[in-house]
């Protein structure tokens, strides 16, 4: 039986703004499957984003949606979650939005271990503004503002999240579509701050500048570089050169922020 995506799509809001060949729609479908698997209640689900191509995603989903300012999704979402801890709060955005202008909010949301899920769609570029390099653009690659090759080293978003204190970190790709919803399901079920990085392509502003001849070639690259964490255990350092680990990369149980704040309230009221 075909999956009924329409249940979660807002009537009249499609077509989306994404270019032909962009993988954001694949991620959105994965997100919808995850919401449906978990039987989330639309009225009790907040989907929060910043600015950029990926941040337009909430507009298409039928729940409480908050399209904030550039980089600020995590801080707005923290306010929603603090005021209504019983809500499921999910963030979505791109690599530039989340790790450059929003980097501070991102690491501190990780540190607080606030019970929210952040889906970062990493296409290595600022797509909406026409292809400027992001903190995730690989060294040497071309963007509209690195015409001679990018001199900057890139972020490893997963390592950044783990280092900052996130208690669930996973990575998937737009090629491995069937895995996306499973990772998001586990992330939402995890109590604490969970980060799911989904590697994606941007044929329009990244692919064409970096000699990718087609969307298929870009998708195949995602297929080739991805190595499941289990498989990686049996591989040598040489074999892992240039590869990217996928699956659940990190998981630990730690007190989450809103539960800890509930204890603050208890202590304050006991002392009153």
């Amino acid at each position: 039986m075909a999956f009924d995506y329409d249940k979660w799509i807002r009537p009249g809001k499609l077509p989306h703004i994404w270019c032909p060949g962009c993988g954001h729609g694949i991620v959105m479908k994965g997100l919808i499957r995850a919401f449906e698997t978990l039987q989330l209640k639309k009225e009790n689900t907040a989907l929060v984003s910043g600015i950029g191509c990926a941040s337009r995603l909430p507009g298409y989903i039928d729940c409480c949606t908050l399209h904030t300012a550039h980089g600020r999704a995590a801080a707005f979402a923290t306010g929603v979650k603090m005021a209504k801890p019983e809500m499921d709060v999910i963030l979505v955005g791109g690599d530039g939005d989340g790790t450059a202008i929003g980097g501070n909010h991102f690491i501190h949301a990780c540190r607080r271990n606030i019970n929210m899920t952040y889906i970062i769609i990493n296409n290595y570029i600022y797509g909406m503004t026409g292809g400027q390099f992001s903190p995730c653009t690989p060294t040497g690659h071309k963007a509209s503002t690195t015409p001679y090759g990018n001199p900057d080293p890139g972020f490893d978003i997963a390592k950044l999240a783990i280092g900052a204190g996130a208690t669930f970190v996973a990575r998937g790709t737009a090629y491995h579509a069937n895995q996306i919803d499973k990772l998001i399901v586990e992330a939402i079920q995890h109590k604490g701050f969970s980060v799911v990085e989904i590697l994606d392509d941007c044929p329009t502003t990244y692919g064409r500048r970096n000699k990718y001849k087609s969307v298929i070639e870009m998708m195949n690259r995602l297929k080739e570089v991805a190595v499941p964490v289990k498989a990686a255990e049996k591989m040598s350092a040489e074999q892992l050169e240039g590869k990217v680990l996928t699956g659940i990369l990190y998981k630990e149980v730690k007190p989450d922020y809103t539960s800890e704040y509930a204890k603050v309230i208890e202590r304050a009221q006991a002392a009153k």
Partner: protein
Amino acid sequence: MSKKVAFLQGNEAAAQGALYAGCNFFGGYPITPSTEVAEVMSIELPKIGGKFIQMEDEIGAMAVVLGASLAGAKALTSTSGPGLSLKQELIGYGCIAEIPCVVYNVMRGGPSTGMPTGPSQSDVMSAKWGTHGDHPAICLTPASVQETYEEVIRAFNLSEKYRTPVFVMPDEIVAHMRERVVFPEKGEIEVLERISPTVTPDAYKPYDTSCGDVPPLAAFGSGYKFHVTGLNKAQDGFPTTKAELVQAEEERQVRKVDANVDDIVHFEEYLLDDADVVVVAYGSTSRSARFAVNIAREQGIKAGLFRIKTFWPFPDKQIKALAGKVKGFIVPEMNLGMCSLEVERNAQGKAPVLGIFRVDGEPINPDQILAKIKEVK
């Protein structure tokens, strides 16, 4: 029963006023000279089941307040000049997305780090022009600790009533001085709540103006689901670039304040009936001005004080009316001329406007004002 009285600092009174108004969320970032507000809220909010969060930066503090307000909280942030500059983009977000909240900004010397412990009144223009784009602006400038308490309550009421961020901007002197505060009984001062939707969730539009310029606001997590964006939007909350819709929405947002100036603009008229010279002052400077006016009267000079309590919207009508009757205005302020520009705009050349501008971190004293009063012929 006698009323509860306390000897409080302006910032402490601000926190108490917020609690009276039903504030149940505070998001902030430490900054001199406003930090006491955060400290009091961190103690008091959890006692009533409210939430306090110290964010990673000033921008995050503004964002968390807006997010909490959308989820139904009555939210406050406190800051000072440099923090206000950082918050400005999201204050604009609050204006266009129409999210009630109160921004308490203590004015210290600037620009940049300036004089963190020195008084100033140089943020008043930032309240209206700080964020980009056209937007409504409400800014209250209290002159005493008691008034800070009351004006914070009024700020919450105005933000809920008009569904927009509201500033309270005491100068550092008002924020840090200690005075007697008489607390009102519960119910003595009216506390307003935002208009909630009466339609079913399916029929709800977050910017539905069928009942007036202020659309009812549902809370996330209350059974209503809707979209909020910083893009220009239609009544259903979704982005639009349709020229006529954008024009109408922008005009409505500004009209929420412009059409209600008589409700929002509060001021005090002191000895104005026969005044030849009118001192226009706000904040702690108005206290020196009152002193100077009293001395001038003793010396036979017909001086008066127009004390601004609501800085934005500016009391245009009142200043215009005075301009036709007086020989001159004196505008003392701890900046290089901000309020004086507004007074000049309203005086329309009918009366001279003499400024007394100090940015050295020292208060303007009555002697300076008295000397200037005597310059008006």
